[in-house]
């Protein structure tokens, strides 16, 4: 096991290393992005291209009485105006969501959230398209909305989904995990029980690039090319085939450079379908690019869980059981992107990193008149909510027991010899060694010193808080025996070709949105084959040119596609070994692999490089009996289990007693994501996730007024951290490889987003201890902290 506290980069460090395999390496994709030569969806310009704009509902819940499009149709430059009625005629008014619900492509009967799509205009330029929206006359009959999620199931609550046959209430699903009876029994015998109501408010991923698409339908070939902001181009292609009835082999989905995704670009949005319809109707390429307000009010939100948490323990601080009851707001359509058998995503890992006797969760999900979504914002399929719940309630228990929160956690960790560890909710943690990770974070923070400083400050009336969170994630969905999205198994393909001169191309089913796949996947191949990463091209984001797979979200690229890349390279290496044995005239067993070459055992002077083998594979002369030419392979990887990264985070905050403003002074993040492919990229991803955490804990929330108006509809209202709200991040790492992943890697993209909010909230609550505060809900804005200081903390919804 390695434990390392990373030094801060100095200006004089050699950054431009050239590893043939794993290690710090500068990114291949930066050359174009630094020069303004990236190609994002909105950069796509096609001859004759038209522009599409969407008319959205101003109301949260209203019947559509009539729509008059005549003035819009007569507006300059307008080529088409399409309403729900038009789509109904084409059988396209509704589409399936990723959770087997349906969602309106354009509203026909009524609108169900503010911002819902009602009509669209296609015009010669984007200004004309927007002008024409103003001329569409929609008559609405306003209905009472369901905004307060707690009232959604009351008998007299307005019915939102009257489009569903036989639906009489706003219930989406009930879900349960763990053993209720056993958990109740353990609770009944426990010395100490702590309860808390904990809200994880609705937030939004808000990538800097909004969502959009360019559709180009060729009526002669019957072929559709679609450039779109998608994290999952192959899954989208299959769904378009199902939704639009187009044959799948005639659809090409291209995800070019993507300006951040964070789960916001997993679902299929009506706008993508609009652009396809627009292109079919007009016979021209059609571009749709939403603006920031549209992105915030209508696309995939995240969280919105109201959780009752209970923890049972002995007086000495042995945690015995956790139980929770959750009310989940799914918005107007159940658009959650999660494996079918996991309607609550992977919330089942709410048992955290602790060895419990029992656990139980009961959840109810409901419809409200708000935008659909739920799984997004780097949440690893709801693990953000699970980790927040357990790490908050463990801190509440520490407060009750008057124990140090670090000590309480250390006392209850699953021990290294217990892995693989099956939790009380049935998850099999692959590997872990928690204590060294925790100790490293405490050492880096100078934990004891911080507690001393805090005691001195408290004596002077100053408000300083230290918060800890320890998380275990479950990522890399997933094994096809129990994980699919709309019937598509969550596997990923990979294809590798080594060219005659020893350069290579690797094709992936996953898609970077900034994670650096063009670099790290070249490094994985380099590690396995000894070909320098600069000699390896990584192709991704184009369904015509890559093998099928489910895409990039839930930190699954490295655990699933990364495994595929390593295994496809090994397959190529196996073939290379057969060719090498013929070239060197020795048996296969007499060859040693030294990265990049096969060498005759005991005779290092006799060897052939992978490049020489590649030329031989394509060249003249015989190959071994029965072998085809070329040096290439393809696989589809089905993981045997998820991977379980972990980490220890410590946050130090200072609160101004006069203004209640929270300042994050320090943040120490120690991550264990198993084998590390490129430390620079890992560190960058962790930094980004920590910044998300500051946003969620202190600033961000998508709120609604009682009429259902979204109050976070611009970046003036929905506050995202800038450089002034975050500290210089301090990172470290431990390495506990995954036993079932071919290179031992576990994935890291979402760890920091998952782990940081509880660390920050725990720090704020710790700072507020002198006021008797045990819990305060996010976002901890100055006004909400001010209320908490006065014993008037309220839930945000």
């Amino acid at each position, binding site marked *: 096991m390695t434990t390392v506290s990373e030094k801060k980069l100095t200006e004089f460090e050699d950054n431009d290393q050239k590893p043939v395999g794993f290690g710090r390496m500068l990114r291949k994709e930066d050359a174009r992005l630094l020069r303004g030569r990236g190609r994002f969806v909105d950069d796509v310009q096609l001859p004759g291209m038209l522009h599409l704009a969407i008319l959205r509902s101003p109301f949260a819940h209203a019947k559509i009485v009539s729509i008059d499009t005549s003035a819009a149709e007569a507006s300059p430059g307008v080529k088409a105006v399409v309403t729900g009625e038009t789509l109904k005629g084409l059988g396209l008014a509704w589409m399936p969501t990723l959770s087997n619900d349906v969602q309106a492509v354009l509203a026909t009967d009524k609108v169900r959230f503010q911002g819902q799509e009602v009509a669209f205009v296609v015009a010669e330029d984007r200004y004309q398209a927007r002008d024409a929206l103003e001329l569409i006359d929609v008559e609405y009959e306003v209905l009472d909305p369901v905004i307060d999620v707690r009232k959604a199931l009351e008998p007299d609550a307005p019915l939102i989904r009257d489009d569903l046959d036989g639906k009489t209430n706003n219930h989406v699903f009930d879900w349960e995990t763990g053993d209720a009876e056993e958990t109740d029994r353990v609770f009944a015998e426990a010395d100490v029980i702590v309860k808390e109501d904990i809200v994880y408010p609705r937030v939004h991923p808000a*990538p*800097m690039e909004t969502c959009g698409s360019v559709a180009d339908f060729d009526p002669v070939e019957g072929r559709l090319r679609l450039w779109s902001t998608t994290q999952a181009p192959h899954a989208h292609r299959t769904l378009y085939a199902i939704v639009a009835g187009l044959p799948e082999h005639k659809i090409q989905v291209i995800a070019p450079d993507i*300006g951040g995704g964070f789960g916001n670009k997993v679902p299929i949005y009506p706008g993508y379908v609009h652009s396809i319809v627009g292109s079919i109707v007009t016979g021209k390429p059609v571009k749709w690019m939403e603006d920031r307000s549209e992105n915030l009010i209508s696309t995939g939100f995240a969280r919105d869980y109201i959780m009752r948490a209970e923890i049972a323990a002995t007086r000495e601080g042995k945690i015995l059981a956790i139980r929770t009851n959750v009310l989940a707001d799914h918005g107007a359509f159940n658009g959650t992107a999660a494996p079918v058998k996991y309607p609550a995503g992977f919330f089942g890992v709410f048992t955290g990193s602790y060895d419990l006797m029992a656990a139980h969760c009961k959840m109810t999900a409901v419809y409200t008149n708000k935008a659909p979504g739920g799984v997004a914002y780097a949440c690893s399929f709801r693990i953000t909510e699970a980790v927040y719940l357990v790490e908050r309630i463990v801190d509440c228990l520490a407060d009750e027991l008057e124990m140090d929160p670090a000590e309480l956690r250390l006392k209850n960790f699953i021990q290294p010899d217990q892995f693989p560890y099956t939790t009380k909710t049935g998850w099999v943690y692959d590997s872990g060694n928690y204590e060294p990770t925790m100790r490293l974070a405490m050492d880096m923070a100078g934990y004891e010193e911080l507690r001393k400083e805090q005691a001195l400050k408290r004596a002077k009336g100053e408000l300083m808080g230290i918060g800890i969170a320890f998380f275990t994630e479950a990522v890399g969905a997933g094994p096809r025996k129990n994980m699919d999205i709309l019937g598509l198994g969550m596997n990923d393909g990979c294809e590798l070709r080594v060219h005659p001169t020893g350069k290579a191309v690797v094709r992936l089913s996953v898609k970077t949105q900034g994670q650096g796949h063009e670099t790290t996947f070249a490094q994985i191949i380099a590690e396995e084959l000894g070909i320098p990463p600069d000699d390896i091209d990584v192709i991704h984001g184009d369904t015509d040119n890559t093998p099928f797979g489910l895409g990039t979200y839930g930190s699954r690229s490295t655990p699933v596609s990364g495994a595929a890349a390593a295994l496809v390279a090994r397959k190529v290496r196996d073939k290379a070994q057969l060719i090498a044995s013929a070239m060197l005239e020795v048996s296969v067993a007499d060859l040693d692999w030294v990265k990049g070459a096969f060498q005759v055992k005991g005779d290092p002077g006799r060897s052939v490089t992978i490049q020489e083998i590649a030329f031989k594979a394509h060249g003249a002369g015989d190959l071994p009996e029965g072998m085809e030419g070329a040096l290439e392979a393809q696989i589809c990887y089905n993981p045997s289990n998820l991977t379980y990264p972990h980490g220890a985070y410590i946050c130090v905050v200072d609160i101004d007693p006069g203004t209640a403003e929270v300042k994050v002074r320090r943040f120490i993040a120690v991550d264990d994501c198993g084998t590390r492919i490129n430390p620079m990229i890992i560190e960058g991803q962790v930094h980004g996730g920590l910044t998300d955490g500051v946003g969620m804990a202190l600033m961000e929330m998508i709120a609604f007024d009682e009429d259902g108006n979204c109050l976070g509809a611009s970046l003036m209202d929905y506050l995202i951290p800038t450089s002034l709200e975050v500290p210089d991040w301090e990172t470290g790492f431990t390495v506990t490889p995954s036993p079932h992943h071919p290179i031992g890697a576990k994935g890291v993209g979402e760890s920091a987003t998952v782990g940081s909010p509880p660390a920050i909230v725990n720090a704020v609550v710790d700072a507020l201890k002198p006021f008797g505060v045990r819990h305060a809900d996010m976002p901890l804005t100055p006004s909400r902290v001010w209320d908490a200081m006065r014993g008037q903390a309220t839930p945000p919804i």
Partner: protein
Amino acid sequence: MQVTMTVNGVEYTREIEGRMLLVHFLRDVLGLTGTHWGCDTSNCGVCVVWMDGEPVKSCTVLAAMAGGREVRTVEGLANGAELDPIQEGFRQCHGLQCGFCTPGMLMTCRALLDKNPDPTEGEIREAISGQICRCTGYSSIIRSVRWTAVHEAKAKEEVAQA
């Protein structure tokens, strides 16, 4: 209406609508798509370009207001194949991930270094505080600017010694 402006040293005259935003003029009319469009409310800064040497948010500047002025965009930073030191700094220190905020960040940081060749961490944070990056958490952007400051100082010293 007709507008004439210089962009990255080249003069352009185009017929446009009076309401056209500078960001759309650069992207849709001139095809300079390195400058991005992100929020419409001057909050995110992915659209930052220079107008007469000052960084401005081109989503809230009319193209007409840039008439007769010198505009510089991310495409005007590199000198042929050679990156501007600020671009090299971002490359060396992983100052970018998805690359969407990067053009605006580069323009702001270049302007900062031109005025203040040796900025502190606090000064860099202040300079980029009108811009949002969702990927990097800002630390690596700050390191990138410091890398550039140190390397530009070294280069100057070498020139002086020669």
